[in-house]
Every structure is written in structure tokens, then in C-alpha cells.
């Protein structure tokens, strides 16, 4: 193979021609990031044609291309509305396996992940390990050529359909908490695993609790060295952040919502409150929070583009938390007594109330605002950490939960 030597034009021509031959758009891509891929057959072709991970080495379905040339391929796929390209940037599961899986397991799992043949879920958080993720108590005990897993995980999306879960479990209890954790691809379709939907305050169930009782995972499915799972987890989490972005959902009533910077002005007008000077001040302020956050992110991207690291990146989640809570508060206020109601016949109230609750998805999920402030204070501003009482303790002696 000598694709590296292709000119940009030739590459563009090749991928465009290939897409013309192979891509037949059908039902909207439902790709939820967790479920099985709706275009599995096509995805397999994409992988075999080496369009899925062009920056990867030849022996791993790649073309060893520069990311610049990879972009050409992604652009062509995007233009055609075809899925499957750019997975070397975006496929959390495949990248993690590629980086850390054992040769034997890698050979089977990586292509399956690229082709969307296996569905995945994350087995990280536990009831007793939220902000303090390293305090997990799910255990994996070695037995012959495999590990026996016991414990409970929570806030797991897609657990019901997943073939594998990326699992962090404790494999050594006599060392400090970060040092006794290992990382596995746990097969989900086995008797020892029971999945229960978790009902949120929004009266939805986007997550599950996963109860694990004597579940089996082959030692080959361990990613990274024994008791080095914390390190693997960090790279996986980094991927997740860079790829998935802000997961907070918008209104769910289905009723049209005004868009753009004047959205709140329009909602105030619709509610007949736009002539209230107090409301006008709040509309301006909440709109400002949204616009300022956008300006901050744009400036951060520009600085990164110039190769300067930017402190601002880490502020986005905390800023978004305030935006979501404040917008929900204002939407409720605009409705007055109307906000007492909910349901499809009262879409504005349904949205205001839903958004008021769902704002906690961002202010609690993926690190509470309080944890975020620690991170900003310590990693961005360089302020010293607090004394860590459990840092040098054997985990079995640490109180948690």
C-alpha cells in the first residue's frame, strides 16, 4: 500500500468515488453512541476499505495518513452523510482498546468495535464512589485464567443492550485507592449480570444500575497492567471529554423553542412578560451568561489553535451549570402560575420544569460543580490540594460510601 504518497486531490477523488459506489443513504442514523450501529453492513465495508481509521497503521485497518489527509476523508464522508470515518478521533471504545488491550483480545475486539458489531457501556461509578471515583468497591478476584467480578455499578447508559462494559474494579485492597484498580472489557451477556433501569427525578430512565454477581471476565480482557486501571481510566475519560462534549439535553416537550441569542427575549414576549423591567434585566443577564460562555470557548479554541494552552477550556462545564440552572429559573418565572403544570398540553411549563430538574445532570453528573471548582483551582490556578486523609492508606482501611 502506498496511499501515503497520494496527493490530496487523488485521495479526495478516491474516497468520493468509493462512497458513490458503496453508500446508499437509508433511515436516519440513530447512532446513540451506545446502541448497535444501524449501518453495520456499510460500516464493515468502511473498515475494510480503510476509511474508518486512516491515521492508524496499515496492519490495523489504517493508512498511516497524516491527520490533515484524514480530514479530507472525513469531509468526504460528512458531505455524503455517510457514517464510519474519523473513528481514530471519535471512537472511545476502539481507541481505548487499541491503546491498552492485550494482543490476543485486540485482534478480535478492535475490528468489531470499528464495524459497530458490538455495543458497549461504561461501568465506572458506584453508589459509594461518585465524586470519589477511586473509592470503587466492585472487586475482581483472579481465578485460573479469568477474574470473578462482584459489585454494583450505577449511572450506566446502554447497559441493557451492551455486549461489553468498560469496567474498573478493585484487584488489590492492601494498597492506596488509586493503586489497586484494574480495567476490563467485561462481557455483559452472562448470568452474573443483572441490569435495572434507574428512574431519574425527571421521571425518565436513561441510565441503569448494574448488579454484578460472580460474573466472569477472561484475564485476556484486562486493559493495561494489573492494578494500573486508574491510568487506563484517565485516558478513557480524556477521550470521552474530548469527544462527547456537553451532554445536557434541551427542552423535551417537542414544542418549538426559539433559537439564538434572542431566544429568551422571544419566550418573555410569548409569555407576555417582556414589558416587565425586572424580567428584562434577567433576560439580559441569563442571555449574557450564554453568550459569554460561547465567547470564552471560541477564545479558548483560538488560543489552542495558536498552540497556547488555554485555562478557559476547563471552565465550560461549571459555566454551563450556571447557565442551565439560571435559564430554567427564568423560564419558570416567565410562566408564573403556569409553571405549576406539566405534560404535553402545557409544553412551556413541561420544559421549564424539566430543565429545572435536568440542570442537575450537569451540575452533579460527571463531577459536581464543587469538584469542578477544585479542579479549576488546582489545575488551572495552581492552588494547593487539600490534605488527603486517605492518600497513603490501604484502601480496605478507608471509610467510604
Amino acid at each position, binding site marked *: 500500500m502506498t496511499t501515503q504518497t497520494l496527493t490530496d486531490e487523488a485521495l479526495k477523488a478516491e474516497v468520493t468515488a468509493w462512497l458513490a459506489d458503496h453508500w446508499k443513504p437509508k433511515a436516519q442514523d440513530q447512532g446513540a453512541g451506545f446502541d448497535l450501529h444501524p449501518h453495520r453492513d456499510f460500516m464493515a465495508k468502511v473498515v475494510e476499505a480503510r476509511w474508518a481509521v486512516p491515521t492508524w497503521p496499515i496492519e490495523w485497518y489504517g493508512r498511516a495518513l497524516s491527520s490533515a489527509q484524514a480530514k479530507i476523508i472525513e469531509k468526504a464522508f460528512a458531505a455524503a452523510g455517510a457514517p464510519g470515518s474519523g473513528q481514530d478521533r471519535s471512537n472511545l471504545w476502539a481507541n481505548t482498546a487499541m491503546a491498552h488491550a492485550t494482543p490476543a483480545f485486540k485482534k478480535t475486539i478492535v475490528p468489531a468495535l470499528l464495524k459497530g458489531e458490538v455495543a458497549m457501556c461504561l461501568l465506572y461509578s458506584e453508589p459509594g464512589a461518585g465524586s470519589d471515583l477511586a473509592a470503587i468497591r466492585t472487586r475482581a478476584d483472579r481465578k485460573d485464567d479469568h477474574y470473578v467480578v462482584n459489585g454494583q455499578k450505577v449511572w450506566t447508559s446502554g447497559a441493557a443492550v451492551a455486549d461489553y462494559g468498560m469496567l474498573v474494579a478493585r484487584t488489590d485492597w492492601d494498597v492506596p485507592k488509586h493503586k489497586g484498580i484494574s480495567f476490563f472489557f467485561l462481557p455483559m451477556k452472562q448470568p452474573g449480570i443483572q441490569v435495572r433501569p434507574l428512574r431519574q427525578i425527571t421521571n425518565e430512565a436513561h441510565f441503569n444500575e448494574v448488579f454484578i454477581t460472580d460474573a466472569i471476565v477472561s484475564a485476556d480482557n484486562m486493559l493495561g497492567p494489573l492494578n494500573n486501571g486508574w491510568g487506563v481510566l484517565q485516558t478513557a475519560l480524556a477521550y470521552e471529554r474530548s469527544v462527547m462534549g456537553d451532554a445536557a439535553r434541551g427542552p423535551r416537550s417537542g414544542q418549538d423553542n426559539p433559537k439564538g441569542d434572542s431566544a429568551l427575549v422571544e419566550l418573555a414576549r410569548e409569555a407576555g412578560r417582556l414589558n416587565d423591567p425586572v424580567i428584562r434585566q434577567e433576560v439580559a443577564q441569563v442571555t449574557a451568561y450564554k453568550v459569554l460562555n460561547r465567547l470564552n470557548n471560541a477564545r479558548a479554541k483560538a488560543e489552542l489553535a495558536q498552540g497556547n494552552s488555554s485555562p478557559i477550556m476547563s471552565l465550560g462545564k461549571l459555566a454551563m451549570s450556571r447557565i442551565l440552572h439560571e435559564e430554567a429559573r427564568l423560564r419558570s418565572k416567565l410562566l408564573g402560575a403556569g409553571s405549576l403544570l406539566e405534560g404535553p398540553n402545557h409544553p412551556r411549563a413541561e420544559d421549564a420544569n424539566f430543565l429545572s430538574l435536568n440542570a*442537575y445532570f450537569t451540575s452533579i453528573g460527571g463531577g459536581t460543580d464543587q469538584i469542578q471548582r477544585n479542579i479549576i483551582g488546582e489545575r488551572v490556578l495552581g492552588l494547593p490540594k487539600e490534605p488527603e486523609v*486517605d492518600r497513603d492508606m490501604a484502601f480496605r482501611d478507608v471509610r467510604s460510601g
Partner: protein
Amino acid sequence: MSAITAEDLKVFVEQLKRLLAARSSEAEVRRLSETPEGYDPEVWKALADLGVTGLIIDEAHGGFGGDAVALELVMEEVGAALLCSPLISSAILAPALLQALDDDTAKARLLPDLASGAKIATVAITGPSGGWIEGHVVIEATAVGTDWSLTGKAAFVTHAHIADVLLVVANAPDGVAVFEVDPKAAGLTLTSLPTFDHTLRMSDIDFAKVSARRLACNRPTWQAVEAMLDLALIALAGEQAGGSRQVLEMTVDYTKNRFQFGRAIGSFQAVKHMAADLLIDSESCTSAARHAAQCLASGSDEAPSAISLAAFACADAFSAITATSIQMHGGIAFTWAHPAHLYLRRARADAHLFGSSDFYRERYVQQLGG
């Protein structure tokens, strides 16, 4: 002044506490939230036997003759327990309005059944705006001989779905008046509303030439409505005070027993300082509610402004405490199974039930001479 001594009141509240502990557990609140009625008739009976339904009704009509102070204290317990019941409608709004009117026959006809809990009544005032303002009344009353006929729409009517009697505030040719209506009367259409607070029940009521009985009032009727609203606001403030203290206690207990990073999370300043600030809110909420009740009970000139203050201070405190409580709990309070959101829903309902905090702040400034 109250016909109940401070000592009786203490005993009374203790009995209520026990009743609520037994009959308004979180499990019961969740169960009743899912029923169409939204309350338990047996618990209603028990409340009646204890005297809660007749708390503010004159002894002459079979009530306890309790004053605003008694009402506020009782509502603190009701709020702490998230009781599902039509108390606000049938034990507060309706009797308060009847007693503010001058229709002795109506009182004699209705109050004893409300006191005994045998009948449930509610009051319909607000139009689609939801505003508790004379100008927002949109139902028109026309005389038909000695009888009256009502046409128009009442919105956000509490517990109308289980009411045996409706007291409707409507515009008569000579001004606002109160009318007694049978919910089963011809021309009356009741539409239940889905509420964000599942412990609450509300309806829209459409009146199409509904026959009604006008109740006598020797002063501008809106003054009677305002007298009713004063008691209702104090009751709500009491509910908010009781709910606030309950939620703060639940939250503080959790932060003492939830361990992360090898420490109780309540030992972290981020959590500890939120709790300290909420304590100011919850104590201020209790002070405002009780002060308003004392002012009204003692007929102080300060009563109107004290009630406005309680209306916005207690609404804001309960809202802030229930909202911050979820953040302090973290993920566990993001689950349906955790009670934190039940209180948040109640707090958000209470904050709009009788008008917004901004409305009462504006009224407060007017009462301060502004």
C-alpha cells in the same frame, strides 16, 4: 385571639405530629401522588377527628376557633410531612372566606360539615392569568330572579376535583361577589390539570350559565377575599418553614454520613458553607412565618407588611433550600427514589400558588410607604 390555649396547642401539634408520622410517610406520599384523588379519605377523617379540618372554624360552627398562630404551627408539621390533602382548600380557603363574609345562613349550612370533614369545599378566584387580584377575576354573574347565573372560566382551582361545594368569586353588576355553586350543577365543566407537584391537585372550571347562590357580604367583597388570602399566605409560609427545616435536617444528616475521599462530605467547606447559608434561610423562613401569624392574630398594624414579607421570604427560602439540597446530596438525589425532588416540587408549587415573590416584594415596598 385564639380560643385554643398555648398549652392545648402544644398538645394538639404533638398529636398531629404522631398522626402524620404514622399516616403521611414518604411511601404514603408517593402512593397518594399516583392516585386521581391525591389524598386518603381515612387520613382526612383522622385529621377531622383531631380537629385539623376545623382548626380555624369558629367553635359556634363546630370548629376549634384557632387563630393564625395555631394555623401556622399546624402547617409547619403539614409541610414537613409533605401531607397529601385538600387542607389548603377545604380547611383554610373556604372557611376563611365564609367567615370573612356576613352570610350567617351560609355559615350555618356549610361550616359544620367542613369542620367535621364530612364535606370538602374549595374557592375559585383566579382567571387564566393565575393572579390573585380583583382585576383578574373573569367570571361574570348575572341575576336570574333571586337566583344567579355564572359564566366564564376559573383556572388553577385547588382540589375542585373532590369538592362538594365551590365558592366562586365572580363579577356581579355591583362588583365582585362570592357565590356558592354545586360542582355537579348543569353547565359546569371541570378539567383536571397535571401538576408538577404530584401531591397537588388543580383544575380549570368552565362555567356556562351555571346557577349559583350569592352569599351576603356587608363590605366590598374583595376585602373578604383579602382576609382569606392573608390566612392562606400564613398557612403557606408555615408549610414552607416546616418543609425548609425538614429538608435542611435531612440534608445535613446525609452529609454527616456520606463518606468520600475518606471524609464525611459535610467536613468539606464547600458543603459545610452551603449548609450554614441554608440555616440562615431556614431560620429566617421560620421567623417570618411565625411573625406574620402573630401580627395577624394580635391584629397588629404591621400584619399586612409582615404577611408580604413572609410571602416572598418563605417562598424563596424553601425554593433555595430544596434546590441546594439536591446539589449537596449529589447523584443520589437525582434519582426518583430519593425524596429530595418531592420537596423541590412542593417548593416550586408553593412559590406560585398565591402569587410570585416579585409580586409580594412589590407589595411590601408599597406597604413600607414606597
